[in-house]
């Protein structure tokens, strides 16, 4: 705890001294009378004892969804009492305190007071809230003591998710049971085809109507329901941020939404954060994997870097064969473009969802920046064309559209074009 004295205490001491000296020098009583009240204030200020303040902060929840509110309860107490105790709970810029984070209370000796602060979680992320700054002052405000107290409490704000009805089905399935109808033949529910009976076929698979027509045994073939592997490839090399909106925020929202819905379908979902800081999660299934993905997404911040790196830095298990790679990228960095083209060349089923930054960087009409903006848009179009040349669907997700729109575009693309 650091103690401070008000400028008044110094000024009053100087005034009192000057008055008394002037009284002696001039041989008059008026300067002494002027000095007397200031002397009293000086004594009152110096008689104040240093208080002992303890502050505890607790949150009603430590995990919330973006846009929700958390109630922080600050309990403050003092053994000797404080005339005016000012509390300030600093909150990260992504959060906002609705009532204002600074409060001043009076504490009697041994009394514990609680102050409730409503913290609005404006943006997703992993935060630390709990260290409170306090300032204890005497009644007249002549002396004050400041300090930092309290233990930081973790607060995780999960990204908001969208509602999706349809997803992009991967072209290839894996071996385990799931909800995706496979193109392969095997045990399942969906009818696929008819074929002649072979030794080993079960009797229940015989199609008696076809057998009666052809006078030989014919059996039904089915498509099995299997799971798939989906890898969400998040580009964190660069972002466009303006007025509190950013492409990375939308990419994280999309990744959280897709992860939840693919995992609900019993698929295995992995995550690759590809940027200045590379992070990955090996594909897995279940609720634990969902939490692992969301926790990883909370730290998916854009880290600027000049390091050239490709997909070789990723462990092989991160990108299993036949996996659907769903890249969510603003198409701003050529290193990501090269990595994604490399993945396509390795035979991965790749889809690029372009988080459009165009709405965030519109130049003023008539300004000289318009030409540069047009050139930039042309270069983005050229990059998109490169992807399409190798059979990769690139869909643009604009700011005012739901995520379902680009995903439907991918499905439409796949009906028309099948990658080799």
């Amino acid at each position, binding site marked *: 705890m650091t103690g401070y004295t008000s400028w008044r205490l110094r000024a009053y*001491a100087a005034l009192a001294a000057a008055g008394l000296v002037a009284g*002696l020098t001039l041989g008059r009583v008026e*300067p002494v*009378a002027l000095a007397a009240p200031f*002397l009293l204030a000086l004594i009152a200020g110096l008689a104040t004892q240093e208080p002992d303040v303890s502050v505890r902060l607790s949150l009603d929840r430590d995990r919330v969804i973006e846009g929700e509110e958390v109630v922080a309860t600050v309990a403050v107490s003092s053994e000797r009492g404080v005339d005016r105790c000012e509390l300030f709970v600093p909150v990260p810029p992504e959060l906002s305190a609705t009532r204002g984070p600074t409060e001043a209370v*009076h504490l009697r000796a041994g009394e514990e007071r609680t102050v409730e602060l409503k913290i609005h979680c404006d943006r997703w992320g992993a935060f630390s809230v709990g260290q409170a700054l306090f300032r204890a002052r005497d009644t*007249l405000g002549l002396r004050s003591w400041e300090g930092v107290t309290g233990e930081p409490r973790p607060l995780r704000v999960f990204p908001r998710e969208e509602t999706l009805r349809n997803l992009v089905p991967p072209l290839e399935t894996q071996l385990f049971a799931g909800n995706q109808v496979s193109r392969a033949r095997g045990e399942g529910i969906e009818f696929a085809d008819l074929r002649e009976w072979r030794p080993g076929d079960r009797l229940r698979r015989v199609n008696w109507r076809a057998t009666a027509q052809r006078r030989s045994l014919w059996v039904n073939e089915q498509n099995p329901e299997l799971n798939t592997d989906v890898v969400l490839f998040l580009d964190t090399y660069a972002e466009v941020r303006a007025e509190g909106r950013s492409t990375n925020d939308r990419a994280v929202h999309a990744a959280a939404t897709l992860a939840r819905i693919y995992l609900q379908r019993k698929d295995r979902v992995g995550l690759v954060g590809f940027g200045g800081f590379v992070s990955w999660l090996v594909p897995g299934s279940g609720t634990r994997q969902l939490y692992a993905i969301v926790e990883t997404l909370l730290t998916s911040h854009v880290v600027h870097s000049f390091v050239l790196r490709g997909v070789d830095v990723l462990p092989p298990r991160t990108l299993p064969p036949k996996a659907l790679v769903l890249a969510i990228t603003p198409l701003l960095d050529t290193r990501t473009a090269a990595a994604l083209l490399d993945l396509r060349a390795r035979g991965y089923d790749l889809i690029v969802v372009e988080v459009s930054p165009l709405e965030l960087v519109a130049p003023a009409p008539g300004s000289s920046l318009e030409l540069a903006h047009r050139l930039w848009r042309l270069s983005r179009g050229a990059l998109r064309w490169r992807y399409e040349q190798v059979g990769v669907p690139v869909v643009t997700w604009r700011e005012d559209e739901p995520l379902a729109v680009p995903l439907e575009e991918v499905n439409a693309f796949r009906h028309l074009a099948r990658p080799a």
Partner: protein
Amino acid sequence: MVAFVPGLAFGGLLLVVALVWGGPGLGAALFLGGASWVAAVAAAGASTDSTAPLVAVLLLLCGELSAWSFDERLEIRAERQVYWRRGAAVTVLAFAGLVVAALVVGLSAVGPNHGLGWTVLGAAAAIGAAGTGIWVAHR
């Protein structure tokens, strides 16, 4: 009319200090206000001015209320009790200051045979106040 000039000048000075320099400039304003009043009293004649306690308390209230006003600029939301306690403390300090200042003026009327004792006491108080000011400034 001339008697109001120092008061008006002091009021104007306080206003300028409050608008331009804020808190730390207020000490100098109080000093100048007090000094000009003492100079005016000294120039007026040898008799003791009986309004000295009132002027002293008003000067103190100027400092306290201005400082309170400066504190409120920080927009810290405080409960009502905090304001009441500060208001009560300022009032008590003002009354106590008035009593002490009146006592000083009253004691000055004591006969000249006891003058040396009061002079020594006044000198000790002056040294003590100056020492306290230096000690506070170096903390």
